[in-house]
């Protein structure tokens, strides 16, 4: 199970709950095994199995709760993002505090968090992300851009609060 650790990490970030993540990973492998005939050799296995995991999440109680309250299509939330003033020095400071970035990731919407993780942690290409999330490449680029902006804003705000307190 070469992708086991990565799928587990991704599932934990999606669900924010280790028990739910374990159920999700187990369900993913079971579905992948039973549906392996639907996998076309030569296509991307990684995108295929991440797609299974994500669909399982969207059908889970947490996923359904999320999709019923927040639209996954966050194309119109740009105006609500606070502006973060970033400098290389401040980012460097953030980098030293991995927990701050982790907290920032937790504050993002699921759609923003998952696309950042697929791009930065899983190092998927835009094409792989598009295939995994079943969205056009143009949407991948715009969603990634907003997710990065939102993370910078979240980290910047937390840092400001830390300095005030």
């Amino acid at each position, binding site marked *: *199970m*070469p*992708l*086991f*650790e990565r799928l*587990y*990490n991704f599932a*934990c*970030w999606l669900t924010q709950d*280790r028990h739910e*993540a*374990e159920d999700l*990973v*187990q369900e993913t*492998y*079971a579905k992948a*095994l039973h549906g392996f005939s639907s996998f076309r*050799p*030569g296509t*991307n*296995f*990684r995108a295929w*199995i991440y797609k299974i995991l994500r669909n399982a999440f969207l059908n889970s109680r947490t996923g359904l709760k999320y999709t019923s309250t927040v639209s996954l299509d966050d194309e119109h939330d740009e105006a609500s993002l606070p502006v973060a003033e*970033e*400098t*290389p020095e401040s*980012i*460097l400071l*953030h*980098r030293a505090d*991995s*927990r701050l*970035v*982790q907290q920032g*990731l937790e504050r993002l919407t699921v759609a923003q968090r998952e696309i*950042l*993780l697929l*791009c*930065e*942690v899983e*190092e998927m*290409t*835009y*094409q*792989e992300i598009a295939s995994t999330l079943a969205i056009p490449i143009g949407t991948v*680029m715009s969603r*990634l*851009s907003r997710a*990065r902006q939102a*993370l*910078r804003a979240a980290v910047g705000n937390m840092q400001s609060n830390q300095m005030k307190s």
Partner: protein
Amino acid sequence: MACELWTKELDAYLDGELPESETLPLDQHLKGCTDCTALILSKVQMKQAIRAAGKRYQPDAAFRAKVQQSISRPARFRFSRLWFPLLAGPLVLVAVLIFVLTLGRPRSDDRLLSELADLHVATLASANPVDVVSSDRHTVKPWFAGKIPFTFNVPELQDSPFTLVGGKAAYLRQSPGAELLFRVRQHQISVFIFQERALGNLRGLDEMKNAESFNLRSWSQNGLRYFAVGDVAGQDLDRLRDLIEAAG
């Protein structure tokens, strides 16, 4: 082009998604623009910070064992159900013989792919993945002299996203060969090289394949059979194959 137009492209540039036609002009712009250079530095640091922070959760051994058990159980069940009727009579035996004879080769190829995936995983899992550690092809190639019964060329990787990590001797079907380890971004690719005559006819493998979630490319060159295995996109393997083929 003004900075405002370039800044929109910086994320795609850092993600390796900017078309080559735009990469060169942007490289040139960055050499002379301190604002864009500072911005790109902050973006790189943010990417690194997300990468470090994103690798947060590790499954424990008990959960791994549980999943392994759960996915292996149905397979055993089907196996026993498949073989039980074989004892029913010679007619079924003949059918199975025909099945084995007609599908023998793909199964053999599949086993080979699994062996290669296993070799690659074993390399990644090892504390010492390679025996000659060098990014210099002129160091790695001579290391194999006297260790394997053939020679091959290591590709020039300058101006490519690949880095040579090193190499070691490998064995496949009791035949000695070479394993070269390459890195692209955070991924590692094993390239196995064996004498084609030692492995038999494997032309069926020239198509794109995958095994155990790994992408695989296989090709023949100068009497040698090459296999490139990794968890990267197929395009990366194609590009590495082109570089190796160009090395002759």
